[in-house]
């Protein structure tokens, strides 16, 4: 029974990561081919202030994205989970619909909205809300919009899962026993939806650190995040070993995040 699973894990998880780990301690030739001679040089470069700064900025963007996703996603997911059956199905479909089109197409749609002569600018000009040209696209603000937009469903769905399972009577009990709305939220709703929130944080925070397409397309490729740097090693700098070392460090960052969250709450349960 276990054998196919083990094979699957070896083929799709262990092997690629092992290759990544091996490459990360190798060198490269003129053309960019990997040369098998051991060295920690690539890791030494990862800890160059240039890249540490980029790691820090990537984490900052990811943290901001995650925070906005929690603040926006929780009420929405909660509302969907607590609404009538009929509406719940429809609203869930609405959350899923963006996944039916390609990620790139959705990102270009945002570019169409935000660009100088785009939809938003047109509307604002029409109602005379602004007179100067709109400077939204190709700013950090646009990057955050793009990240939040892409990852919001990944925050909402696990929170929805927790919220939907929460017995409404528990909230009534809280009210009954003297909790006002705020304390009912902090004492009952929050602790009971925590697994969903943690799962959502994991699903948003980690991929958001490594996201590169949005910084390129909506941020104008002006401020590189760690995903861009890794991508560049393969597609511009011909430096696979260094790219692998960055990838390994990024992976360790993921493991650390997961471990931290697991210690704080039962993420595992929700993810399984």
């Amino acid at each position, binding site marked *: 029974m276990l054998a196919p699973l083990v094979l699957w894990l070896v083929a799709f998880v262990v092997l690629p990561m092992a290759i990544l780990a091996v490459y990360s301690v190798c060198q490269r030739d003129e053309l960019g081919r990997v040369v098998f001679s051991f060295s920690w040089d690539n890791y030494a470069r990862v800890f160059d202030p240039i890249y540490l700064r980029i790691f820090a900025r990537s984490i900052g963007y990811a943290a901001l994205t995650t925070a906005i996703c929690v603040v926006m996603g929780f009420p929405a997911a909660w509302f969907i989970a607590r609404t009538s059956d009929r509406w719940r199905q429809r609203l869930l479909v609405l959350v899923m619909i963006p996944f039916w089109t390609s990620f790139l197409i959705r990102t270009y749609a945002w570019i169409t909205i935000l660009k100088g002569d785009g939809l938003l600018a047109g509307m604002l000009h029409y109602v005379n809300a602004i007179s100067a040209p709109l400077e939204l696209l190709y700013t950090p603000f646009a990057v955050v919009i793009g990240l939040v937009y892409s990852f919001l469903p990944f925050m909402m769905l696990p929170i929805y899962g927790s919220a939907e399972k929460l017995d409404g009577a528990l909230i009534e009990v809280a009210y*009954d026993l*003297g909790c006002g709305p705020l304390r009912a939220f902090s004492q009952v709703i929050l602790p009971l939806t925590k697994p969903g929130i943690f799962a959502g944080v994991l699903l948003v925070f980690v991929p958001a650190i490594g996201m590169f397409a949005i910084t390129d397309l909506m941020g104008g490729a002006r401020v590189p995040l760690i995903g861009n740097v890794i991508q560049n090693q393969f597609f511009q700098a011909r430096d696979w070993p260094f790219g692998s070392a960055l990838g390994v460090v990024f992976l360790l960052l993921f493991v650390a995040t997961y471990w931290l969250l697991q210690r704080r709450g039962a993420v595992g349960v929700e993810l399984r």
Partner: protein
Amino acid sequence: MASMVELRGVTKRFGSFTAVNDVSLSVMPGEFLTLLGPSGCGKTTLLRMIAGFERPDQGTVWLDGTDVTDSPPYRRNVNQVFQSYALFPHLSVRDNIGFGLRMQKLAAAECASRIEEAVSLVALEGLEDRKPDQLSGGQRQRVALARALAPRPAVLLLDEPLSALDAQLRRGMQLELKRLQRQLGVTFIFVTHDQEEALTMSDRIAIVNRGRIEQLGTTDEIYHRPVTAFAAEFIGQANVFDVQFVSAAADGVRVRTNTGLQLLMRSDRWPQGKGKGRLSLRPEKVHVAKEPIPAETTFPAIVEEKVFKGSVDHLRLRLPEGSELLAIVANQSALIARIHRGDQVYCCVHPEDFVVLGET
């Protein structure tokens, strides 16, 4: 005496459905009142309006002399035990019971002693550190009870709290609830659809049907003097006859059922000058014998069915003129062993056992 809970002309609609229709009710301090009725009759909605989870569309809710119609649940000194228990799964037994106390911001020591008191009240010693999913159904029930009682509410509302327990546990809990209520002197308002439960525990019962209180009275009144066919048939069982007035004499009033059966009943029960009426007769009041009984109202009957119910037997009798009569016979008599399906028996009813019913 001032009432502890009072509903004045309360109406609640959900869309086009009227769940509670102009109900007024007054519950005395320390009273054990049961709202009894079939599912969907509005009894739970009544309870939720007292708790504050629903706001009446019309009428007012009063608690201990104060109008609380617009107060949220957390401002009412009323706690509820939920049908599903609704224990907080993330909290231990101790923290569940102490939840309401923490919200009252009591000192830690006071909290601890009140929790201890509540734990011993419901005999849960030793389980304080367990989580709800490590408890049996009966234990969860006790935690829910202790949690609702710990903040010492003036009124405890119980929404079918025993329905999830098995029969034996349920009987035990019925007695225990009654004992607790006497011991604490707290007003209990108990919702159930189980008439036996209602009779066992209540001081008074309110029979709720289609959003209205059909009859409110002591258990005795409710059982022996049902005022409507619904009340008669919902509590225990009843033989109900539609009858016409025949004659009045010194020994009582004679009436005739629509199948032609002549019955004699106490004249003070029959409303003066009334031509038609509806009677109820409890099946255990029907006396059954193998031989004719020298009494006023005696008829022969055929036993069409005999159902063994443990302590009693249910007999479905067919009377000569065609009507059906249910009789309940205690299993202690030697007589019952000799009665079989298809036998000819004689039954007799006493004039004082007929109750005249009003319209539903």
